[in-house]
């Protein structure tokens, strides 16, 4: 679980975004929280990177550190060739127009006292883009693309919409400045499954239409598999495994990835849930993370070496990278239900 190491990164000139050895810590002294501890990642233009992990693994902090909110304690974030960490406030604000965020709770991330019209046109006003009429015209077009009727939407306030509609408004807001990269932080986890499908399809359409690059942060592995071109699994501030979704899900190499996959309830009664817990215990405290591999305290394969030495990211098969001293070899992990057909019946 080291995740220190950069074997999984591609050529720097190809990447739209490249994070090197990112460290984010909160507080100081003995109560210092090690939220993100040396993560390196890159994203090619047009790619969707899925960032998965359980709560407290640092996936949201990573997403926020990309846009320097908060500024990381260490490491570089290169976006379109510029190191964001070295930019001043004014320069950073300008670059941020190309980087947008979509949050988990669609209702509380919109100002309840403002009309949709003002929510959408505010970024254009700040950057003095276009006349008032042009701004409204763009807002109408974007609302139309996210599947909302501009005539009935523009003059209403967020509380008059459902959760799914609010998420569409959030997405529309993120699109107003025509960004290159959107960081989606758990954009569908507050939504019902039927609405979740609508938003996931919408994100795919928008990606196609605007040539967007996405960082998709989520805890739901099936959702991440559906939308991502590359998946990175995180645990306690470190990277475990990076790879294309198909092979990573079919043949997880890291014991943590295998445990995660084994824990997913499958909507098929023929798949009997394993009664042995895939993982025992709770997440250790990020104030005092374990030495060596951070996963070793819960890992079924842990040995003495895992305590002493932090594993480095290395390639196990083509395009598959894992940070583990004793990765799972060969085919499916024991007891992993992913190879069983789970297609919907009827």
């Amino acid at each position, binding site marked *: 679980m080291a995740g220190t190491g950069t074997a999984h990164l591609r050529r720097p000139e190809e990447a739209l975004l490249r994070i090197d050895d990112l460290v984010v810590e909160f507080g100081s002294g003995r109560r210092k929280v090690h939220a993100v501890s040396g993560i390196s990642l890159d994203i090619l233009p047009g790619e969707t990177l899925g960032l998965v992990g*359980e*709560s407290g693994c640092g996936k949201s902090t990573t997403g926020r550190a990309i846009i320097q909110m908060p500024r990381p304690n260490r490491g570089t974030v290169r976006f379109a060739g510029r190191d964001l960490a070295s930019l001043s406030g004014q320069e950073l604000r300008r670059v941020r127009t190309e980087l947008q965020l979509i949050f988990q709770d669609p209702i509380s991330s919109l100002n309840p006292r403002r009309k949709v019209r003002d929510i959408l046109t505010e970024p254009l006003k700040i950057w003095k883009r276009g006349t008032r009429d042009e701004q409204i015209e763009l807002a109408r077009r974007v609302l139309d693309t996210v599947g909302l009727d501009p005539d009935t939407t523009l003059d209403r306030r967020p509380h008059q919409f*459902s959760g*799914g509609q609010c998420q569409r408004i959030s997405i529309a807001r993120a699109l107003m400045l025509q960004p290159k990269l959107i960081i989606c932080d758990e954009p569908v986890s507050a939504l*019902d*499954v*039927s*609405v*979740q*499908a*609508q938003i*996931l*399809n919408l994100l*795919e359409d928008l990606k196609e239409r605007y040539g967007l690059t996405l960082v998709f942060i989520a*805890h*739901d*592995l*099936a*959702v991440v*598999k*559906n*939308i*991502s*071109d590359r998946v990175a699994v995180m645990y306690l501030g470190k990277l475990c495994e990076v790879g294309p*979704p*198909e092979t990573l*899900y079919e043949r997880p190499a890291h014991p943590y990835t295998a*445990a*995660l*996959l*084994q*824990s*997913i*309830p*499958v*909507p*098929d*009664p*023929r*798949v*009997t*849930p*394993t*009664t*042995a*817990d*895939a*993982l*025992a*215990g*709770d*997440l250790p405290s990020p104030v005092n993370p374990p030495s060596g591999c951070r996963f070793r305290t819960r890992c079924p394969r842990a040995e003495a070496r895992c305590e002493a030495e932090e594993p480095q990211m290395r390639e196990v098969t083509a395009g598959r990278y894992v940070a583990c001293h004793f990765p799972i070899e060969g085919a499916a992990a024991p007891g992993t239900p*992913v190879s*069983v*057909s*789970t*297609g*919907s*019946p*009827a």
Partner: protein
Amino acid sequence: MNEPYAVRPAARRLLDVVDVKTYFRTPRGLVRAVDGVSLSLDRGTTLGIVGESGSGKSVLSRSIMGLLPKRNVVREGKVVYEGTDISRLSPEELRELWGTEMAMIFQDPMTSLNPVQRVGAQITEGLRVRLDMDRKTAKATALALLRSVGIPEPERRLRQYPHELSGGMRQRIMIAVALACGPKLLFADEPTTALDVTVQAQILNLLARQQRERDMAVILVTHDLGVVAGRTDHIAVMYAGQLVEMAPTAELFSNVRMPYTEALLRSIPTLDQPRHTRLQVIPGRPPDLVDPPPGCRFAPRCRYVQERCRVEAPPLLDGGNGHLYRCWYPVGRETAAPVTVGTGAS
């Protein structure tokens, strides 16, 4: 209620819910949160109630247990528990049943535990009041309970406050509180929704183990079809305050009849789909329960909708094999007209 269940020996029957209606009086009008639900439950079995937010699944379990306020609530129907109708009991009489006969685990373990009381006091309260135990016996029983729900260092935990524990630990405490007085019926209302996927698996395994050891019936309320698939005997699907489909679990998944259930299953991304698979969406959103549509409540969103669906509300129909569904034109292999009419229709 219905024939499919009546063939079982009567002595195994624990609960019969007959045409239960729960309406809330609001300034907007009468909200029909639960609108004529009938179901039965045998001892030691598990019923999964599945539905999206606003379908009435949580209100139904609270209606059965009698956990609703008196004011501005209209209640109808019968709840027969072990041969006695408990729907007309006073709060004092109901309190005799809570804990010892039936208990509930809520979704959010933080807000449902008392934040200013030690964990030990919360577990022993029921033992002391309901089972008349003295302090020492109650404490010993509490320790045994904590051990049985897999909590390490139980002596120390008894003296801790809820905020000192992780989400998974708190949910284990909630389960210990609910199990303390040995209920025969346990309501688990979204017991794992607030938890991470590996912890969810631990908690569901724990519930299943406790249920087997105690011959306890469980009503598992959830929005996640994956959670109920491998762990229930029967599944009831709710939509807009009504049961729309109910069947033994294997039967339901292999032979879906209700278009809503089918759409729900198809809108979930699964692990065996390739990346970027287009998800099937359910257009629109659930109806307003103040003024539900006159015909089938799912008709406005149904892809198979026909003229009759919009004008005439379908009753709960019996398709054989204990499979009930509320649809004029059910999907699935046999499309012949349904045979008999169930009694649960409103």
